[in-house]
């Protein structure tokens, strides 16, 4: 499908993305090797339950990383409630409680931006359904640094503000439905 070796997948999503992510993780190849870094908007005061809910159907292990936790292959990482999640150059996570960005903490822009800063052209950025524009700027950074980008087809999104915002500020490589995103990932 695409002749490039990715080193990481970074996914952002908000309203309407939970079902999409659940479907992706339940149909992804169990031997999928790349780390998947996810930032999804979530209730800030609910610390537990999200990973557990996603894990029920996931074929890959999901963790909320601790501060300075090393990034490993074949693992799905979810930004914890009420923390921004960044990737550092030595391939570990750094958490922070800085001000909200786009009214969000965790902010998708921060996770996608720092991931693409570290993995450059080896970054695959995916932005899903959502009700605000968080993540659009991050996707632009992926594009600026030569990474590859996919947004969920706005026609399929429960709320399409997020992918539409990305499409408005930067060229995006692919606009795909959930099944196509899964096929894309499984072809890597």
């Amino acid at each position: 499908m695409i002749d490039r070796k990715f080193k990481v997948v970074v996914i952002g999503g908000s309203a309407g993305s939970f079902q999409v992510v659940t479907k992706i993780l339940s149909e992804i190849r169990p031997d999928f090797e790349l780390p998947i870094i996810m930032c999804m908007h979530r209730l800030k005061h609910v610390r537990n339950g999200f990973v557990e809910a996603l894990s029920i159907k996931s074929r890959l292990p999901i963790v909320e990383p601790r501060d300075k936790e090393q990034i490993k292959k074949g693992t799905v990482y979810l930004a914890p409630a009420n923390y921004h999640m960044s990737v550092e150059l030595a391939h570990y996570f750094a958490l922070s409680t800085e001000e909200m960005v786009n009214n969000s903490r965790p902010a998708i822009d921060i996770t996608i931006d720092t991931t693409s800063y570290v993995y450059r052209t080896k970054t695959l950025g995916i932005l899903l359904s959502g009700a605000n524009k968080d993540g659009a700027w991050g996707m632009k950074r992926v594009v600026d640094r030569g990474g590859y980008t996919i947004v969920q087809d706005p026609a399929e999104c429960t709320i399409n503000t997020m992918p539409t915002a990305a499409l408005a500020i930067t060229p995006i490589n692919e606009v795909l439905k959930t099944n196509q995103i899964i096929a894309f990932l499984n072809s890597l």
Partner: protein
Amino acid sequence: MVEEIELSELKKLAVFIKDRFQYDFTNYAVSSFKRRIQRVMELYKLSSVDEIIRKLSSEPAFIRTFVSELTVNVTEMFRDPSLWRVLRDKILPNLFSIQDEVKIWHAGCASGEEVYTMALVLHEQGWLDRVKVVATDIDQGIIKRAQEGKYSYKNMLDINGKNYVRYEGTNKLSDYYKEDGQTCVMDKNLLRNVAFKEHDLVRSGVLGKFDIVLCRNVMIYFNQTLQNDVFKLFHQSLNSYGYLVIGSKETLVWCDIANKFITVNNEEKVFKKVRD
């Protein structure tokens, strides 16, 4: 958004500040340090790291503002309500059952929400006059704000008040402040046993011996080298069987002092010093 700052530029700035002023940011975590520098550049209309250096050279007093902007002061009262229940129901009763007075250090107290939180817990349990509390921060300006105890009405309602309800306190949070327009002013009497001090975890050293040290979501801004050093400082600052409380996503497992502590509550990140 300003242009991307190069790593070498960040390093140059940190080294300049270390040589010229007493602050050492060379071991701060890079991604958040970079965002804070970008923030300073946007706020003060400075277009490059060199411009920051020029401004700090010609106007050394700017370092105070710079440090204020650089450090992250976002905090909440009763952040992680379940932790405060554990402190109220387990940790504090344990300490008060064996000693008359308990010494507490809030390391990196920012605008003081956690200091008031602890004071409220102690007050509601009738322990407020059995503690000596020290609250420290690197930033003089934020310490003044903590002492004033003025918080926005919106945060008080949306964040602090809701956390307090989840904590299951005995009163209403609004019993402890007066509304003044868009601001809520905390009851200063709650701070009667609190001493505020300027203290930099990187270089200021041991302040005394404490029974509880709380340092939550401060060390996430440090790299692992510096975290290791600060954990040593906390170990030296704790009495035997004293408690260390860190942020819910922080860990000390890989640090040199890890084997000198036992885990009291892994979910709430409460550790106990068991070896000197």
